[in-house]
């Protein structure tokens, strides 16, 4: 076999650097990367097709599970599109609660990214420290919404849970602690020599390239493009909150780190404003089951960039088409550009720098048969099947069902 100049190494789909399955075929000459091609689709579960077979409320449950880190972004984006079609005007308090949970999610997502970036360049202590601080935000999210991830706080026409004053107090305390932790990380990032060495000059993406390749979110803002959906196309309660759009001119991974930490500081001030300004009143509005004919495009500033949902309704209770375009899909084009003539050691940090979330990117789903005959699986038959499945394994739910039914009927 003629020893070709370039060694081709596959990175992924299972690779310690990548939290998720995507595969890059990298051709290497010595330590330099000469070409990189990306293969996605490992996470493709087909959520868009499944959305067409479920009602809007069931879709909400499914859309939230597109991505584990930005679940609130997807569910808010979807709900805003549906409310726009149905012409529902949600109460002001619900808009504020949605913005609050959105900012809390941005904090936990950026802290998570900081830890993963530290791990990618071998700085495990940073991973341990940032993830210890992240637990503070996770506890706040768990106490206010009931679950650490996949909060399920959105419903069509408003929010399902309210924030009581005692929780406000907890949130303010947590934000105080996290603020001086983030100040410590900012001073660390600007003074730690090995960190700066490993991050600066890596994954260069000039402003023109970023525009041409359609980069979004912190990746674009680190190349000097001041574009933030919260400012340009305000939704929820962002219209009456003031905050700065953080941009940076480093155009490399170091710039993205600074942009993300700047956004953390902005999130803290936004949350403080929300807690002060949150108006009273109801948190939800009655919404019809059948959404009238129409279509809507809704955009949301997810922690990774601009997340876009397109929903088309045909008057029934099921959407006609749901299109989800996740921020990672826009940033993935820029990765092969950033990888050109970089070192192999830079590959994990460059991929981590766009903070990829591939479970957002592949999401179409279709329902299929499990017992082989030709009709589609209805929800009811699925439930009966699961009861039967557990009965075969000696766990009989029918008595349990009877008891529950009796209690309901007596009440």
């Amino acid at each position: 076999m003629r020893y070709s100049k370039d060694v081709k190494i596959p990175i992924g789909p299972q690779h310690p650097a990548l939290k998720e399955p995507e595969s890059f075929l990298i051709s290497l000459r010595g330590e330099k990367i000469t070409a990189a091609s990306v293969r996605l689709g490992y996470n493709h579960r087909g959520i868009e097709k499944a959305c067409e077979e479920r009602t809007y409320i069931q879709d909400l449950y499914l859309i939230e599970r597109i991505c584990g880190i930005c679940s609130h972004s997807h569910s808010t984006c979807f709900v805003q599109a549906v409310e726009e079609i149905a012409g529902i005007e949600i109460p002001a308090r619900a808009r504020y609660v949605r913005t609050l949970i959105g900012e809390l999610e941005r904090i936990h997502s950026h802290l998570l990214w900081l830890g993963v970036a530290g791990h990618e360049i071998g700085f495990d202590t940073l991973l341990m420290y940032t993830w210890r601080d992240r637990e503070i935000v996770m506890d706040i999210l768990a106490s206010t919404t009931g679950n650490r991830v996949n909060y399920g706080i959105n419903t069509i026409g408003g929010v399902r849970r309210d924030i009581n004053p005692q929780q406000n107090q907890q949130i303010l305390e947590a934000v105080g602690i996290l603020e001086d932790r983030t100040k410590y990380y900012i001073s660390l990032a600007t003074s730690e020599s090995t960190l700066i060495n490993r991050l600066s000059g890596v994954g260069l993406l000039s402003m023109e390239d970023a525009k041409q390749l359609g980069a979004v979110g912190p990746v674009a803002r680190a190349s000097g493009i001041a574009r933030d959906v919260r400012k340009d196309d305000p939704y929820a309660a962002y219209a009456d909150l003031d905050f700065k759009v953080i941009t940076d001119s480093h155009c490399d991974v170091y710039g993205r780190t600074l942009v993300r930490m700047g956004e953390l500081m902005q999130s803290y001030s936004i949350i403080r404003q929300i807690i002060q300004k949150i108006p009273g009143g109801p948190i939800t509005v009655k919404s019809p089951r059948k959404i009238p004919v129409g279509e809507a495009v809704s955009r949301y500033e997810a922690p990774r960039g601009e997340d876009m949902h397109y929903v088309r309704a045909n008057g029934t209770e099921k959407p006609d088409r749901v299109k989800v375009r996740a921020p990672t899909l826009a940033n993935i084009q820029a990765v092969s550009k950033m990888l050109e003539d970089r070192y192999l050691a830079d590959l994990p940090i460059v991929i981590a720098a766009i903070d990829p979330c591939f479970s957002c990117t592949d999401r179409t789903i279709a329902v299929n048969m499990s017992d082989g005959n030709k009709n589609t699986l209805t929800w009811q038959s699925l439930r009966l099947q699961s009861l039967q499945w557990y009965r075969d394994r000696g766990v009989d739910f029918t008595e349990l069902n009877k008891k529950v039914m009796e209690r309901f009927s007596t009440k």
Partner: protein
Amino acid sequence: MRIIEKMITWSRLKSPWVLHFNTGACNACDIEIIAALTPTYDMERFGVVLKATPRHADILLCSGPVTKQIESRLIRIYEQMLNPKFVVAVGTCACSGGVFNGCYNVEGGINSVLPVAAYIPGCPASPKAIIDGVVKLLGSIEASGDKK
């Protein structure tokens, strides 16, 4: 020989090395697995270390429904691991395919592809549940170890 047998089972309980593989999940469970290794939950107290290669690992932590494209990779990874090896399904998607069960591109739970030793339900499975799952798995190894 009993002493050596007992010592090996004891050592298997005390140093379970873990390899994490995301078979198409929404990466909420993967974040919780890594969160279980960080200071607040710190699985290293039980000797659990996240290893990078299948050669070094004993327990394969799978999270997510098995999508068609990743099925062959999952089997290949499982074959690379050295006996005695165990598979733990983390999260509802891994246990039964969860909300994605029955889709054209999804095989269903991990048990449709590999023999699974322990199931950790939850969407996502919280770090406490993951630690409880790993400890229960070690308990079952101990029980099967004594029986042998």
